[in-house]
């Protein structure tokens, strides 16, 4: 086995290297802080000279997502990356991809909102990512990395899931994970798929009609409402299968916990320190980290909710995931929220105080 390639890298740079290494066919993006290093790294690495991966600085976010739609429709592994207001601009394209069942990857390195907001880290796009953002009854597979290593590893995972279910996938990161540098074991190289492999694996792809088959049509439009409902039922059945099979989470010191923190991404990293500080004071706190935000680990949270005295949803926003936790626990256990907004990231001691105030002293 080849020696592991260990490097020191930013989360954003890790996304770019992982894309090149996992056989990504095309990246289409438009610069925005705090994720510009993705496109910058790709421009430096020039993958079009090595793997043949296409890299385009598009004229806008709208153009980017529609280029991803086009490439995905041809069965290609295509992606884009942006930050919150840029991803807001992409929502129409994402809904169209969900409707036409076109795979593709969107990376959101979140910053403070709403609107143009700030350039500092935030997690206030949880609703945008998990509730659609575009129109219609659809879901996007959402992965929340909590380290530079996961920023890299989730690129391939997101593509795999996206093609397995013919559904757009998103990596929901933020300015902390994008900008920080950590040790990274680079993923192994995987070649881009050949045209023959794509034809075999994606018989639905619109990559030029051969005589022996009928034309493939990929569209989200269906004017016959009966047919449109059938299409929706098919999508809902697919989403149900994803909910059954693809929930991912990490469980840290939950089994003896009296209180539970639920946190994802950078907040989960802060949460690790919070449980360490609480346990040093003799308060048994555990951390449940949803890795997939959709599908949400509702079953695991319900299970843990029956054993603890209270749950704190710690998110760097005004309280979004807390709604999913309340749905999962259905009033069986007190559920509180703590968060900061606009790009302010709380330090662990602030969260410890909030946990005591909201769950223990109340």
């Amino acid at each position, binding site marked *: 086995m080849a020696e592991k390639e260990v490097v020191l890298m930013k989360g954003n740079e890790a996304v770019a290297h992982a894309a090149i290494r996992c056989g990504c066919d095309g990246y289409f993006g438009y610069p925005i802080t705090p994720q510009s290093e993705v496109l910058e790294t790709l421009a430096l690495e020039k993958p079009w000279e090595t793997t043949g991966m296409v890299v385009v600085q598009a004229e806008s976010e709208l153009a980017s997502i529609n280029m991803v739609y086009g490439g995905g429709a041809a069965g290609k592994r295509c992606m884009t990356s942006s930050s919150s207001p840029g991803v807001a601009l992409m929502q129409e394209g994402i809904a169209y991809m969900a409707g036409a069942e076109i795979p593709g990857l969107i990376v959101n390195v979140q910053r403070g909102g709403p609107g143009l907001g700030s*350039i*500092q880290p935030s997690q206030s796009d949880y609703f945008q990512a998990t509730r659609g953002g575009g129109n219609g009854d659809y879901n996007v597979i959402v992965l929340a990395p909590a380290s530079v290593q996961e920023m890299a590893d989730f690129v391939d995972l997101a593509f795999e899931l996206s093609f397995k279910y013919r559904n757009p996938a998103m990596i929901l990161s933020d300015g*902390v994970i994008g*900008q920080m540098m*950590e*040790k990274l074991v680079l993923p192994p190289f995987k070649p881009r798929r050949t045209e023959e492999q794509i034809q075999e694996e994606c018989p639905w792809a619109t990559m030029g009609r051969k005589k022996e088959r009928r034309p493939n049509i990929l569209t989200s439009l269906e004017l016959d409402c009966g047919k449109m409902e059938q299409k929706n039922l098919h999508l809902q059945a697919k989403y149900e299968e994803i909910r059954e099979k693809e929930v991912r989470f990490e469980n840290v010191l939950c089994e003896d916990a009296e209180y539970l923190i639920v946190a994802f991404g950078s907040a989960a*990293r802060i949460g690790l320190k919070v449980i360490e500080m609480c346990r040093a004071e003799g308060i048994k706190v555990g951390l449940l980290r949803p890795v997939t935000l959709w599908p949400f680990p509702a079953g695991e949270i319900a299970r843990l909710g029956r054993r603890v005295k209270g749950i704190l949803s710690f998110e760097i926003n005004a309280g979004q995931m807390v709604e999913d936790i309340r749905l999962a626990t259905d009033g069986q256990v007190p559920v509180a929220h703590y968060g900061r907004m606009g790009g302010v990231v709380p330090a*662990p*001691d602030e969260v410890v105080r909030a946990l005591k105030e909201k769950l223990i002293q109340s």
Partner: protein
Amino acid sequence: MKEEIIIAGFGGQGVLSMGKILAYAALVEGKEVTWMPSYGPEQRGGTANVTVIVSDERISSPILSAYDTAVILNQPSLDKFESCVKPGGTLIYDGYGISTPPSRKDIRVYRIDAMDAAAEMKAGKVFNMIVLGGLIKVRPLVEVEDVVHALRKSLPPRHHDLIPQNEAALRKGMEIIAPAG
């Protein structure tokens, strides 16, 4: 072993790159590392700071309010971070431009006149390496040889002729750092 460090000063002093070289050296030694910069408009001419965490185990929060060690390179950073050093922790500061020196008695305070030393060496750009030398002298987190190795790995080859000067700066810092007061 786990050390949570804040390095803070003016933008342009090499705060971020000093943190990066330290993180790289720790990586060379097989440790876990996290380097978290303050980023945004405040870096342009204003203060810049970076959190570096070096550990034998998985690293938790990159966002902290208390540090084992603070490396302080200007007065605004001293005002902001002196109170954030954990009791029993370490504060290292450059005396240049400091009007109100640190006053805490429950931490170990070291002074390093790296700005003056860099001027003496007629090499302003190695200022941050002098400071780093001082840091690894009083907090032996990494070996000086691994810092040199990190420089070789993180600098583009066209700058490798500068490595001996950087190594001299590291050793200078190890020599001149002294308990304050």
